[in-house]
C-alpha cells in the first residue's frame, strides 16, 4: 500500500496555543480520498484530530477544507491527485529541498476555526444564507392544487440548486477577505434561485435589497475564485452577474452603489467609442461629470488624476477628447441586439458542450 504524508493544520482554542502544522504518514491506495487518509490518521495515530464529515460521497457538503491551498471536499479528492498537486503541479511548487510530496490540509478561509479542520459555518455561511431570505415568497393565495412551473424556468435555477452548502466558495471569496460583511457567493447564488423562480412574488424587492446593500451584488469583484472553488459547478459569480443583469436591465434599479450606472456608462462608452474612454467612464459611472454624486468622487480621485497628468500617462488633450470612434458595424451590433425583445443567454451548464455530447453519442 502506498504511503502518503498529510500535513494537517492543528488548532485547539482551549489550549491557548497558536495553530501549528503536524505531519502524519498514512498508507492507503491512491484512489482513496484525502478524507479517508485523515480518518486513518485519526483512527491509528491521534484521535483528537478534528474534521467534520458525514456522507463521504460529495453530497452532504460537510468536509470542505483547503487541500494544498485550494478549497475542496476532502472526500472528493484522491490521495494520488493531491500528492501530484503538492509535488508541483498548479499553484503549489514544492518547497526547496523537499523530498516527497506532502499534502497540506487546512481549514477553510473567511470563517473562524473551531478546532483543527472544523470552521464555524454558523457564524458566517449560514448567517449570510439567512440574509437573502432563502425561501419562496409567493404573491396571493396558493393555487388549489400544486404550482405549475414551466420546465425552462426550473432548468434555469437547477444550477444554483446543485449547491451542497459546503462553503468552499465562501472560503476563497476575495471580496469577503477585505469586506467580511459581503453577502458572498453562496448566499447570492441562493438569491438567484428565488429571483429565477416564477413562483416567487418578490423579485423586485429582493433585487432592490441586494443592489442597495453596499455589501450586496455590486461588491463582487468578478475574480472567478468561487467558480473555481465550487465542487458542484454552481458558478456563483455567474449567478451574481445574472442578478445584476436582471436588477439593472429588467427592473431599472438605480442603486446607491453606482452599480447600474457603471454598467450603463461602460456599455454606452463602448457603443460610442469602440474602445473604452476612461476619462468619461469615471464621472459617468457616478451619473455624469456634474452629478452631485460625481463631484466628491472626482475630487477624491484628483491626486491620482493629477499624478497621471504629471507623469505624461495622460495628456490634457487625451483626457478631454477620445480620438477613437466606434466602427459603424459595432454601433449596428449594439442597436440590433438592444432592439430584441428578449435576451439570448446560452448556459453551458444546461445545454452542455456539443463535442462532449457527440463523443458520448459515439461511445453509445
Amino acid at each position: 500500500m502506498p504511503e502518503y504524508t498529510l500535513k494537517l493544520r492543528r488548532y485547539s482554542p482551549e489550549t491557548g496555543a497558536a495553530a501549528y502544522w503536524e505531519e502524519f504518514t498514512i498508507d492507503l491506495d491512491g484512489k482513496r480520498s484525502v478524507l479517508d487518509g485523515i480518518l486513518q490518521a485519526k483512527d491509528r495515530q491521534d484521535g483528537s484530530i478534528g474534521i467534520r464529515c458525514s456522507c463521504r460521497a460529495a453530497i452532504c457538503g460537510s468536509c470542505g477544507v483547503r487541500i494544498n491551498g485550494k478549497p475542496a471536499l476532502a472526500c472528493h479528492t484522491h490521495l494520488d491527485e493531491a500528492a501530484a498537486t503538492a509535488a508541483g503541479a498548479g499553484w503549489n511548487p514544492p518547497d526547496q529541498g523537499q523530498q516527497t510530496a506532502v499534502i497540506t490540509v487546512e481549514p477553510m478561509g473567511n470563517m473562524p476555526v473551531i478546532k483543527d479542520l472544523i470552521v464555524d459555518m454558523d457564524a458566517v455561511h449560514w448567517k449570510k444564507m439567512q440574509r437573502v431570505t432563502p425561501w419562496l415568497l409567493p404573491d396571493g393565495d396558493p393555487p388549489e392544487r400544486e404550482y405549475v412551473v414551466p420546465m425552462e424556468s426550473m432548468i434555469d435555477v437547477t444550477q444554483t440548486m446543485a449547491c451542497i452548502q459546503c462553503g468552499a466558495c465562501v472560503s476563497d471569496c476575495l471580496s469577503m477577505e477585505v469586506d467580511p460583511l459581503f453577502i458572498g457567493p453562496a448566499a447570492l447564488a441562493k438569491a438567484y434561485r428565488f429571483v429565477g423562480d416564477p413562483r416567487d412574488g418578490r423579485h423586485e424587492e429582493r433585487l432592490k435589497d441586494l443592489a442597495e446593500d453596499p455589501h450586496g451584488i455590486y461588491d463582487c469583484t468578478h475574480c472567478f475564485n468561487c467558480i473555481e472553488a465550487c465542487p458542484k459547478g454552481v458558478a456563483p459569480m455567474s449567478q451574481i452577474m445574472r442578478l445584476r443583469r436582471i436588477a439593472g436591465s429588467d427592473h431599472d434599479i438605480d442603486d446607491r452603489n453606482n452599480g447600474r450606472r457603471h454598467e450603463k456608462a461602460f456599455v454606452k462608452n463602448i457603443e460610442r467609442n469602440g474602445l473604452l474612454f476612461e476619462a468619461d467612464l469615471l464621472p459617468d459611472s457616478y451619473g455624469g461629470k456634474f452629478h452631485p454624486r460625481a463631484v466628491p468622487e472626482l475630487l477624491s480621485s484628483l491626486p491620482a488624476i493629477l499624478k497621471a497628468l504629471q507623469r505624461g500617462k495622460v495628456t490634457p488633450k487625451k483626457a478631454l477628447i477620445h480620438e477613437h470612434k466606434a466602427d459603424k458595424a459595432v454601433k449596428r451590433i449594439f442597436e440590433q441586439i438592444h432592439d430584441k425583445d428578449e435576451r439570448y443567454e446560452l448556459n453551458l451548464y444546461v445545454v452542455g458542450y456539443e463535442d462532449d455530447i457527440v463523443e458520448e453519442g459515439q461511445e453509445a
Partner: protein
Amino acid sequence: MKVAYWPGCVSRGFTPELHGSMAKVAPLLDIELVELDRACCSGAGVIAEHNQELADTLNARTFALAQQEIANGADLMMNICSTCQGAQSECQERLDANSEYRAHVNETLSAEGLTYEKGIANKHFLWLMVEEIGLDAIKAKVKRPLTDLRVGPFYGCYIVRPTDRLNIGEEHPRDRYLQMLIETLGGTVVDYAGAYKCCGFPIITMNKQNSLKQAGTHLGDAADADADCLVTPCPLCHLNLDLQQPLAEKVVGRPLNMPVLHLPQLVGLAFGLDPKELGFNKHVVKPTSVIDWSTSVVAGVGDGQGSGGW
C-alpha cells in the same frame, strides 16, 4: 512570427506605456504585429454582465477580423491584456461549444461580411512567449539578466481562472508562466500572498474602500516579502496597483512605494532596452529601485548598452 494583434483599450488609453513597450519588444522577438484596428473593446466582463449575446457578438467580430489576418499569413491572434484574454475566452467557450448559437451570432455579423469559424487560437503575450517562442529562445536574447532583481508576479484573475476554460493544467502550467519567465530573464521570483488575488479594480466605482484595500494589501504583502517590483500581464490591474497606489496607501495606512511593471517592460529591460524607452517615466510610482538596479548592473555586465536611465 506574425500575429493578429489585439492591444485592448487601456493599453492605448491610460497605460500607453504598455502598448509602447510591446511595440519596442516585438521586433526583438521577431514578432510582427498586425494591429486589429477595427475591433472593439472585449467588454471586460461588464458587457457580458449587461448582455451576454452582445459581448459574444462583439468578440466574435474581433475573432473574425483576426481570422482574416490569419488567412493572410498571421499565425494566431495575440493580446496583451489579461482581462481581454479572460473575457474573450469566455465568449469563445460559448461560441465554440454550440454550433446553433455560433450560427445565430454569425447571422448578426453577416451584414458586415464576417464569419467566425470555431477554434481560433488567441493567446496573451505571456502564453505566446512560453508556448510559441519558448523560454530557451528568450533566454538567448537576454542582454541584461535581471540578476538580484526581486520580482513579484501579479497575475490578476482573468488569466488564471477558471482553469478549465483557460486550459491550465499539467500540459500548459499557465499559472506558473510568470514565475518561469522571471527566472528565465535572470530575476528572483518573490513568493507573496497576492500573486493570484484580485487587484480590486472592477469595483473601484462601486466600493472604492474595498477595491483599494485589495490593491493596498497585495502591494503591502509584496513589500513585506522584499520585492523590488511587481510585474503584471494586465493593464487594469496596473491601474489599481500603480495609478491608484497613492490612494491605496491611505486606505491601508502604510507607505507602499511598490513599482509595478507591465510584462513587456520587464522583458524589454532584460533585453537591454532603455527604461525610458519602455515608458518607465509614465508610471505613477517611479520604478526607481528597478532603474537603479538596471544602471548598476549594466555597468558590470553585457556591452553597457541601454543604460541611459533618466
